[in-house]
């Protein structure tokens, strides 16, 4: 039942918006990874998840906001049962580590899909990255950080839309990024954001 629902979701994604993977700077491998991407649409999570090869998809958990994906039975079903999401709180709760669910998933050996902007932009520019990516890079130096640019998604399913418009989208996977020795938080986050933005200007890659 779940497997069938997954197939339907992937088939529907391919039919409506394509969402194929373009591995421009890295290859799909079994290494443990954190994929981090720009965020312009609720479909981002589904498209990046669907773009991964089958074997990697089952070992990868998207990180999703509890206040959106945790609400309502359908959304919870899609987020938890189909996509296998890790839900996080966007508003910090005093006395708890917001990254704890992510650290737990990484400890199980799973890869993560992360949207470091924290919220959806309008698709025209990428907003500054939140610190979570830096913190995970710092505590998990063995995990590869792969920048991903999701193309056209804000056009296919903009804020406030009810149905996605059939516009071809693509996920471009870039070269792995490393936290440099003693690199400052802000410098690293700027560099990570720039890595995603560069993938969005394909003439330069």
């Amino acid at each position, binding site marked *: 039942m779940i497997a069938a629902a997954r197939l339907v979701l992937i088939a529907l994604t391919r039919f409506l918006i394509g969402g194929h993977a373009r591995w421009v700077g890295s290859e799909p491998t079994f290494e443990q990874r954190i994929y981090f991407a720009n965020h312009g649409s609720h479909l981002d999570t589904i498209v990046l998840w669907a773009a991964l090869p089958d074997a990697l998809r089952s070992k990868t958990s998207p990180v999703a906001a509890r206040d959106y994906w945790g609400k309502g039975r359908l959304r919870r079903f899609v987020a938890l049962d189909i996509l296998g999401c890790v839900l996080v709180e966007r508003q910090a709760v005093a006395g708890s580590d917001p990254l704890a669910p992510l650290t737990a998933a990484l400890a199980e050996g799973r890869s993560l899909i992360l949207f470091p902007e924290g919220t959806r932009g309008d698709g025209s520019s990428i907003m500054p990255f939140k610190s979570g990516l830096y913190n995970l890079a710092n505590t998990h130096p063995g995990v590869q950080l792969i920048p991903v640019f999701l193309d056209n998604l804000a056009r296919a399913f903009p804020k406030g*839309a009810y149905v996605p*418009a059939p516009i071809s989208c693509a996920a471009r996977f870039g070269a792995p990024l490393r936290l440099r020795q003693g690199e400052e938080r802000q410098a690293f986050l700027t560099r990570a954001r720039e890595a995603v933005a560069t993938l969005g200007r394909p003439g330069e890659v």
Partner: protein
Amino acid sequence: MDDWRIIILLAGVVGILLAGSLAAFVLSRRTNSEAMQATVRNLQSRVKAWWVMVVIFAAAFLLGPTVTLILFALTSFYCLREMITLTPTRPADHRAVATAFYVFIPLQYWLIFDEWQTVFAIAIPVYAFLLLPVLTVLAGETDHFLERTAKLQWGLMLTVYCISHAPALLVLDIPGHEGENFLWLFFLIAVVQLSDVLQYVFGKLFGRHKVAPRVSPAKTWEGLIGGGLSAALVGAGLFWITPFSPLQAGGMALAIVVAGFCGGLVLSAIKRSLGAKDWGTMIEGHGGALDRMDSVTFAAPIFFHLTNYFFVP
């Protein structure tokens, strides 16, 4: 249904494709140079894509008109998707874009299925033409308003309205030729595609004078005249699958060739004005679906109208 005719046609098409596959195979054994190898690889992938398209077309015929309609609806869908993907739409256009896809594609093909010809002829040119800008204006963004709505209207006209005239041939009633409609659709598609291939071949062999070097550098007068006339001759030779006399069939084929050539040229200019070389990557060796359908967008409505005007009482 005159089954023997479709069997002869299919045998002919399979024969041509076998010859193509064989030629590509022999060439791949003989050539050593890098450039020729690339040309042969392109030929191989084109022939392979043709096999797939012919199998799909044959399956559509075997499974009946409803499946053929669904097939063309999907073709319209993919062509419109390619066109809108290259068009820089904004969030404010979303409602109009979604309506074009989810309302007007099914509606247009349902109208053919229902044989409701009067509405089929005006649903998009009148109702979609007027409704889409209303949906866009409600989003309140006036910046580039005319360009944004015009691009969507053009996309819907070319990829849905124009292409839908090909399967619309299936519902024309010509006394004395009942049940032969699929053969006319075959006639249209065969002449268009043959004309494209022959123009390419004649252009490669004899091409000197370019028709529109800035728009489509591969199109030459020699290719157009040599390929176009050959395709018209083949069309005249196919009169036995149409309601036309040999001369009329040649004239119809000529109209298809000229319209198809114009379609290829105009679509090429649109593609370039949107800053792309191919419409997409769907068909290996051919670019996108719209790269294969560009001539059909112009040829289908012209052929439909001429047939309907002169041969339907």
